[in-house]
């Protein structure tokens, strides 16, 4: 009798609580299988199927795996403590009937053991089944050749078992500690005895509003994408905190306010729902806030990763404006003269033609590039000291000087420029002065600005730090930097002399990748053959086709992981909602019973439930939408780091993600409210 006793008690306990235990087990299974799938996808065999960007795929998916593991730990811990709390009474009864703590711990251990075994078995089976589908999806996304061989990765299996053994060990340990600490009486106490209605602390509510406002302001005012990354992190933490404060306290205040409006409150459809919401918000506000934050997470993830995937082409085109990008650094502005550059132009043309291509859509722009910090009176301080260490400084501007002979198309027609006169094209900068001065180590050059033009689309090739840019068309590039020190004391360049020569060859990707490598060799040799006085320093040749692998690898795997993680988080949200409905349903069942006796009709009950659930469900969704709107400018700026400037696309992906999520959310709402209604109307208890 002794041997089977505890396992049987544990099994009975799980079965009797199946309404809660089953979803928990399902979540465990899904987490395990998701982890296995991600491990499996990073295994060598699968990576071998991916034609390009393997390294990025591996990196992104491994990071995703860590996210899943950490999230599993937090979330399973949370749900298990919910499960345990619901059962304290049962344990209390065992305790009173003479079971010691030691015996209770044995029951809990068996329960955890059974759950662990079932989760692992089910999770791995499901994982192995789904891993093939995931593999097909990923390989297909990356443009690899798919096949229908079933693969199994032993290393991933072992890793999954080990990681989740650790997760379950933590959950088990916490359950044991919690049971050991509690007393028989506290175990016996029922879940809600004469609870006070919450007051809804006004201070906390105001604090929540202030923090939220602060986070929103932060999200909107940060302009520099790199500091946006940091600012985003801070803002996210603030938003999370504010959401919890507001949901817990603000919602109680709101209900109190509604109760104060007698005309509204004393209506059959609001009366019951408002009062019971006010009553339970304090406890359930936390659940709502969690749902809201998870919803926001899903929305941000989905909208950005889909935007990146569908914007990968755009992004590629911004980073590689033409099929072949040639960039040459020279020593002196004088070296940018056509007479000096022409031999190289001819050599590039000759080489490309010889390989069957053309040099179409030429982008031929010799320029001088400086970075400066704006001072009063239209002065830009361009010393390397003040700019090199200041990449993160949102004020930093990159200034490109062009000659009237070759300048970006977006500048438009030029007036005749006298010496010391210039035309400015701004990109995201509001330039108010009518002159512009560049200063390097005390030496200044000033131009009178004949006209200041604004760039609508960012095309003036802002540097990769996302700094805002200025294009200045000056009559003479050499005169523009005359007297400027080339380097500072520590050898950093104060300005650089740059010649961009980009063109389309009209060839295939493979040929372009070949030309990229051979052209670099050829031109390097050609430059070396030129006299020293020509001033050629270094040469870079890039091809769009060559860069595409990394782009699609990174963006594709981000897209993939975005969808996988969204599924995981969605699952979590569903579970939280489901548990919320169940626990509230049991609480409310007695109340609705009383109200029926006092004369509430079934129709009243249904409409009251609908009003209540709708408010409770709409709240997190509305908040998530609000968060998303305010996160929008910041995410857009972070996306510019990935050379994604297509705002229209981002708006589209955001709206589509939101609509899709809202539809799914509505579906969950319908399903779980059915469960709730069954419990409340007594079908479950009879």
């Amino acid at each position: 009798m002794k041997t089977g006793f505890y396992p049987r008690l544990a099994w009975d306990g799980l079965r009797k609580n199946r309404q809660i235990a089953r979803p928990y087990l399902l979540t465990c299974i899904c987490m395990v299988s998701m982890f296995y799938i991600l491990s499996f996808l990073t295994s060598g065999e699968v990576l071998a199927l991916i034609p390009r960007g393997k390294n990025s795929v591996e990196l992104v998916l491994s990071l995703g795996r860590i996210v899943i593991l950490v999230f599993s730990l937090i979330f399973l811990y949370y749900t298990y403590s919910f499960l345990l709390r619901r059962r304290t009474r049962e344990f209390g009864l065992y305790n009173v009937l003479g079971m010691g703590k030691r015996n209770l711990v044995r029951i809990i251990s068996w329960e955890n053991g059974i759950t662990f075994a079932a989760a692992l078995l089910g999770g791995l089976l499901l994982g192995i089944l789904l891993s093939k589908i995931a593999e097909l999806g990923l390989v297909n996304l990356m443009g690899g050749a798919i096949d229908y061989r079933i693969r199994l990765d032993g290393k991933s299996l072992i890793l999954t078992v080990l990681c989740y053994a650790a997760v379950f060990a933590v959950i088990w340990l916490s359950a044991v500690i919690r049971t050991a600490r509690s007393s028989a009486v506290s175990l016996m106490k029922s879940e809600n005895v004469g609870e006070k209605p919450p007051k809804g602390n006004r201070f906390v509510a105001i604090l929540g509003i202030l923090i939220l406002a602060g986070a929103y302001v932060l999200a909107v005012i940060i302009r520099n994408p790199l500091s946006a990354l940091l600012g985003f992190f801070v803002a996210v933490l603030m938003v999370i905190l504010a959401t919890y404060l507001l949901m817990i306290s603000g919602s109680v205040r709101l209900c109190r306010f509604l109760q104060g409006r007698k005309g509204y409150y004393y209506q059959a459809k609001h009366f019951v729902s408002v009062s019971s919401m006010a009553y339970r918000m304090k406890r359930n506000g936390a659940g709502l806030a969690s749902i809201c934050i998870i919803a926001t997470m899903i929305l941000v993830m989905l909208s950005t990763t889909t935007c990146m995937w569908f914007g990968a082409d755009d992004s590629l085109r911004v980073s590689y404006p033409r099929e072949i990008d040639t960039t040459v650094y020279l020593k002196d502005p004088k070296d940018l003269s056509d007479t000096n550059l022409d031999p190289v132009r001819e050599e590039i043309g000759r080489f490309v033609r010889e390989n069957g291509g053309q040099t179409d859509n030429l982008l031929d722009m010799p320029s001088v590039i400086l970075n400066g910090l704006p001072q009063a009176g239209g002065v830009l301080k361009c010393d390397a000291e003040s700019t090199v260490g200041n990449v993160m400084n949102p004020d930093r501007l990159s200034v490109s000087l062009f000659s009237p002979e070759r300048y970006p198309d977006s500048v438009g027609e030029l007036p005749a420029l006298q010496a010391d006169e210039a035309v400015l094209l701004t990109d995201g900068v509001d330039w108010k002065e009518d002159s512009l001065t560049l200063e390097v180590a005390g030496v200044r050059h000033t131009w009178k600005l004949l006209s200041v033009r604004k760039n609508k689309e960012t095309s003036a090739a802002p540097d990769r730090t996302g700094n805002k840019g200025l294009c200045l068309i000056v009559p003479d590039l050499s005169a523009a930097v005359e007297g400027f020190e080339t380097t500072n004391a520590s050898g950093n360049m104060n300005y650089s002399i740059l010649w961009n020569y980009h063109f389309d060859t009209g060839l295939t990707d493979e040929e372009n990748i070949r030309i990229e490598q051979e052209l670099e060799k050829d031109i390097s040799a050609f430059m070396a053959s030129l006299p020293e006085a020509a001033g050629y320093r270094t040469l870079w040749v890039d091809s769009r086709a060559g860069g595409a692998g990394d782009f699609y690898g990174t963006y594709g795997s981000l897209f993939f992981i975005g969808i996988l993680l969204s599924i995981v988080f969605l699952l979590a949200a569903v579970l939280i909602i489901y548990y919320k409905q169940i626990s509230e349903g049991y609480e409310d069942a007695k109340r609705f019973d009383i109200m029926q006796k006092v004369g509430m009709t079934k129709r009243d009950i249904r409409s009251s439930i609908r009003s209540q659930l709708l408010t409770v469900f709409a709240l997190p969704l509305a908040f998530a939408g609000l968060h998303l709107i305010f996160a929008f400018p910041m995410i857009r700026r972070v996306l510019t780091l990935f050379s994604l400037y297509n705002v229209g696309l981002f708006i589209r992906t955001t709206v589509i993600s939101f609509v899709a999520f809202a539809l799914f959310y509505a579906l969950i709402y319908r399903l779980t409210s059915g469960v709730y209604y069954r419990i409340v109307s007594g079908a479950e208890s009879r």
Partner: protein
Amino acid sequence: MHLLEVNSLKKVYKTRFGGQSVEALKNVNFTVEEGEYVAIMGESGSGKTTLLNILAALDKATAGTVLLDGKDFSKIPESDVAAFRRDHLGFVFQEFNLLDTFTLEDNIYLPLVLAGKEYKEMNTLLMPIARTLGIESLLKKYPYEVSGGQKQRAAVARALITSPRIILADEPTGALDSRSTDELLRLFAEVNRQGQTILMVTHSARAASRAGRVLFIRDGEVFHQLYRGDMSDDLFYQKITDTLTLLARGGEQA
């Protein structure tokens, strides 16, 4: 016309798979007149809870009729039963059945809110009742903040506020201490004096001794009834306990 008329009421419970059937009410006949205060007594299992549930339209009779103001309960469509109960009947329960999410005031308003009344109107209705029951100062409190007796008084107020044709009270003193019991019974008598019809189920002889008439139920039938006439509470109490003793001995009605 009688206010409430119960004719040959019968209720048979069947076990779920149709095996045995239990006859909870055999043949119950009685009437209640406007302004009466009637107590129904009987031991556990005598069928008094079943009777009350049928009178409250919470349960349906197997045979027989219940008429309120001549209106047959069984003729009321299912969808209107709750509204009928709300508009014509008032309830007082042993366990008070106040909602912990509402203040006492809101608990009392509940049936009126369900009936779609305006706040102003509800408030004017509440004030005299609250004064009679002595709970004016407690209206803003929540059920967990007040004593059992105070809760029951609020429950009585909730039953009274709809001006029901009849109040059905199910062991209203069952969960109260003796002081609160006395207080509640005094209030019931007071309310009855003002013209309110009350039907109370109880097995406390003391509670029953305050009523105008006591019905005794045994084995699903009205076994005996006692009229107070001009007897004092104490004398009536004596009569009731005598009858109960007789009942317990299993003697036949004389």
